[in-house]
Each structure stands twice: as C-alpha cells, then as structure tokens.
C-alpha cells in the first residue's frame, strides 16, 4: 500500500495535500464511532503535505515515506503535541522533544495525522483501560480492538492512516493487530530506539509498526530501527557480529525450517483459530515447506513470569509521576472549580493535605486508573522486603530458563509458528471486571517479550462471525529482517488461497 501511494505521488496522480485531506475525510466519517484518535494534528499535517507537494512540483526526488500519512500511539513523544499515554495524570502534557522514531519519520517526510488511543500507560489488552474513552473494533463495534495499541490497530484497519506505530511490552502490537486483521511487528528488543517512548517495563518495551501488509511493516521498520546513542540498549541489526541476523536464511522458503510448539495448541485455544492455523500449515506443507512439531515445556510459565517482572518494572518506572504538573485539578474528587488550586481542592476531602507527602498519595491515588494502580501495588509487593527472592528473583531465573529453551529450539528450526491470540476479539466489558481473564489474552505473545525475540502477527482469515484471525511467527533474537522476508512469503501463500 505504501509503495502504491508513493507511486501515485511521484506520478502526480494525487497530491500529498489531497492524500492527507482524504484520510481526514475517512477519519471524520468513521472515528466518531471507532474512537481511535485522541489528538488530531491536521494543521501541521497539511503544512507538511504542502512542502512535499512543492518538492514534487520542483521535480525533486522523494523518499518512500515522504508524504505518507501515519498515526502514532499516544505514549510516543511528538514535540509540541499532547502526549498522554492514555492517562489522566498526563492529560495536559505537551512533549518538549521528539522520540527518535518520530525524528526518523520526520526526516523521511512521513506525515503525522494524529495520536491514537491506548490502555493507560500501555497496561491492558483491550484499550478499555484508556483514561479517556474506549476504542471499538472496526470489524464489530461491540467488540474491543485489542490493546494496548488498540487505537493504532483500529486506525490502520479502518483505513484512517497508511500505517501506525505502537509499542509492545507483552503483546500490545501483535494482539490488537490480530483482533483488527492487520500486520503487527514486535521487533527484537533494542532493534528500535525507546528514546521518547513513555516507559512501562523497560526490559520488555519495544516500538514497532502496524500496517496493511508485511511489505509496509518492513518499509517502516527499516526506517525506524537502528542504534541510537540516546538509548544505550539499542542495537544495530546490520552488524551481524552482534546478532544472529542472517539475510541468507530468508532465501528459499523450502530451505527454512519451521517449528510448531505444541504448548501453544492447547485447551483454551478457540477452535476456529486452531482450524484456520492448521489449514495454513497444510498449505505451507503443500508447498514442501518443512514444518515439524516441537516442544517448549516452559511455555505455561511465561505468563506468570511476565506478571511478576512487568509489574515490578512498572512500579519503579511510574514512581516518577507526582500528578502535579500535567494533571488538571478537576480529576480529583471534591473540586468543582477547574481554576481552584490543588491544595485547596484536596483540602476539601475528609483527610486534608498537610504536607507534600499527603499530596502525592492523593494525586497518584486519583490520577492513575484502576489497572495502573493494581500493577503498581503488585509490583511493589513482589519487590518488597521478604518477597523479593520468592517472586522477582524467581521470575528472573525462570526467564533464563525460557530464553535458554528458545535458544535451544532455534538450533533445530529457523522460525516458530503459533496462534497470536487464544480467541478472536472479545466483547467490550466481557473481561474488564476480571483482571486475570484479561491477562490471559496475552498468553501466546508474552514469551517473545520475556526473551527479547522478534515476532509478527499475520492476518490469515476470519471466523464465521467475520472476526479477524492472526498467526504469529517468532524468530531468533536479531532475525527481524529475515523474519519479515519469511512473513512476506507466507502472506503471499495465504492470500493466494483466500
């Protein structure tokens, strides 16, 4: 799709301005129902488009993303634009600098249309935990788009932008991509700079593209990835000494070996999803592609391991929010007047503020949403004296076990094929009262985050009720480029049979 739009721009079949206007028209038509966007940046977008048009008119060469409209998850900083991470505690925060991914996209001339809705601080699997409103699934407005990058997934799926960026800590790109029927790439840990991404769990977070095709995801990934001196954990995948990146491996798909980890095809996996994946596997085998059943015995421990490590990092990362600067006073109870000062407002409560410490308790207690508070408390518990060894340290040991198992299996096979989600998109409200059932929607995606591995969601068809189904391919650490090549081939095989 990006390539097509690019061709239209250089052949002057459409102007960048018209393209931007067209997308805003779709947004105007659809977004009142879907509610994917938190902020729109139309004025800036049209200014940028004008520049691109002038360049084309002058006969200058333009880059592949130049003039291409995109959307970005609201936990990624764009200078001068409101960046809330879906949280009331950052409701009035305007970013003072660009995230590295934004700088790279701006340098390429891509045009930002707006910032998309998400679960607060990326904590959730449905976008129901947004501090602002719930985004709906474009395929069925009574269902969730997935999360936490639900706004980005819905925006791409409903053609309200050409591509979007999201962040993935436990499945937050792949799971919404699966629910909305699009491609979502979670790159290897460190392959994309996290500078300017609002931290959730720093050892798990990664930024990646959500797109209409693998080719689009690849175009975007090539531009946003790379070593960044502002993120000391970032890596350069083109340096094969550091990683297992091997373009040769992606050559002929019949020479590539795939594994099916049996632990991903268990009770609880929706029958329609299982059938669809088995049908795809059959098609691949018909093309003489080698697929063998494999075992990753520690798989059932990935999710419990994640639910110790992630909240521990969350409790630490979110300690920085005091709720004083960017959170409007009206969010707190006992205050009717927006203009009244923080102290006076909260003093009206049963326990008046007497010192700064008291203020923190209230601003944090009322500024964060329920799920965020729950994870901060859980994280505080697993890190606290007397419980650290039994929970946090234990989980970090299990993490090694899971990583070692992946390393071992990747000596036998090049890639793993699994379902992305255990069920298709669920109803709004269906899981919001039971946190554990919500957590289980990430059961197939968290292992890649725990192990830093690249993984991609490919749409492979629909259920009887017309809900998208996703297939996940997981590769060895640093194999992002070959993973994308392989995914393209599989995408073509799946498309040819639809």
């Amino acid at each position, binding site marked *: 799709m990006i390539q097509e739009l690019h061709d239209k721009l250089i052949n002057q079949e459409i102007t960048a301005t018209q393209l931007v206007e067209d997308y805003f028209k779709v947004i105007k038509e659809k977004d009142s129902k879907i509610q994917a966007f938190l902020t729109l940046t139309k004025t800036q977008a049209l200014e940028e488009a004008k520049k691109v048009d002038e360049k084309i008119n002058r006969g200058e060469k333009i880059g592949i993303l130049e003039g291409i409209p995109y959307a970005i998850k609201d936990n990624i900083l764009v200078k001068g634009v409101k960046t809330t991470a879906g949280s009331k505690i950052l409701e009035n925060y305007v970013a003072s600098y660009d995230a590295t991914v934004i700088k790279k996209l701006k340098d390429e001339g891509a045009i930002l249309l707006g910032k998309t809705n998400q679960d607060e601080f990326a904590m959730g699997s449905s976008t129901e935990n947004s501090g602002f409103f719930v985004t709906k699934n474009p395929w069925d407005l009574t269902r969730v788009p997935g999360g936490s990058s639900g706004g980005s997934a819905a925006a791409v799926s409903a053609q309200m932008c050409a591509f979007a960026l999201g962040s993935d800590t436990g499945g937050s790109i792949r799971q919404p991509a699966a629910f909305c029927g699009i491609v979502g790439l979670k790159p290897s*840990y*460190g392959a994309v700079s996290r500078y300017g991404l609002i931290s959730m769990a720093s*050892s*798990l977070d990664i930024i990646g593209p959500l797109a209409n095709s693998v080719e689009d995801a690849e175009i975007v990934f090539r531009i946003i990835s790379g070593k960044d*001196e502002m993120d*000391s*954990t970032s*890596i350069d995948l083109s340096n094969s000494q*550091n990683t297992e990146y091997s373009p040769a491996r992606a050559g002929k798909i019949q020479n590539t070996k795939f594994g099916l980890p049996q632990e991903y095809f268990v009770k609880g996996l929706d029958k329609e999803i299982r059938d669809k994946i088995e049908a795809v596997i059959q098609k691949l085998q018909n093309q003489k592609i080698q697929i063998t059943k494999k075992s990753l015995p*520690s798989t*059932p*421990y990935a999710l*419990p*391991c994640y*639910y*110790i490590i992630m909240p521990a990092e969350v*409790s630490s990362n979110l*300690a920085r929010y005091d709720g004083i600067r960017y959170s409007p006073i009206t969010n707190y109870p006992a205050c009717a007047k927006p203009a009244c000062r923080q102290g006076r407002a909260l003093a009206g409560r049963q326990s008046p503020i007497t010192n700064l*410490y008291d203020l*923190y*308790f*209230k601003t*944090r*207690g*009322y500024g*964060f949403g*329920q799920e965020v*508070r*729950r994870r*901060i*408390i*859980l994280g*505080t*518990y697993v890190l*606290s004296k007397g419980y650290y060894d*039994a*929970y946090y*340290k*234990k*989980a*970090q*040991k*299990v*993490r*090694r*076990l899971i*990583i070692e198992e992946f390393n071992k299996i990747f000596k036998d096979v090049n890639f793993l094929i699994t379902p992305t989600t255990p069920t298709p998109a669920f109803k709004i409200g269906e899981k919001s009262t039971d*946190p*554990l059932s919500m*957590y289980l929607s990430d059961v197939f995606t968290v292992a890649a*985050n*725990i*192990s*830093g591995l690249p993984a991609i969601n490919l749409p492979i068809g629909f259920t009887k009720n017309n809900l998208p189904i996703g297939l996940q391919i997981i590769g060895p*650490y640093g194999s992002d480029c070959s993973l994308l090549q392989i995914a393209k081939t599989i995408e073509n095989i799946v498309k040819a049979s639809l």
Partner: protein
Amino acid sequence: MDFTEINHLLELARLELSNEEKEKIAHDLAKILEYVNQLQEVKTDNLEPMAGGTFSKNILRDDEINSQKLNLEKEGYFEVPPIFD
C-alpha cells in the same frame, strides 16, 4: 492479604485508595498471586537470574568530546540556553 499489608504497600507506592477499593485490590491480588505462584514448581536451582531479556552487555561509546554539546573555546564549559533574560 489483609488491610495492614495492603496499607503497607500503599504507603510504599504512595497511593491513596478508598476502603472499598482496598477490598477489591486485596481480592484481585490474591487471585493474581495464586496464578503467578505456579512458578514455585519450576526447578531453578542452578540458574542465574536474568537482568533483562537479552545477553547484551553494556554498550558504551568512546569517551569523546561532542563539540555540539561542549564548546571548548569557552574554557571547556557546557553552554546552555539562557534561563533569564
């Protein structure tokens, strides 16, 4: 988990909750902890804990002066935009 324990955690995390929510959170935490306690069945005796998801070591740049950030002509001081007019 009882209220004393919840209150202690809230103290550490600097959060105020209503009594109603304390009850709900105690209930939720009990369920989540029961779930994550599955890890206790895993044998991890000879395993070193990880500190992250990869085996990458510290990646350090050379200790060179960035002339954009440090102007040596001004006696090696850092130059920052003026704060007061």
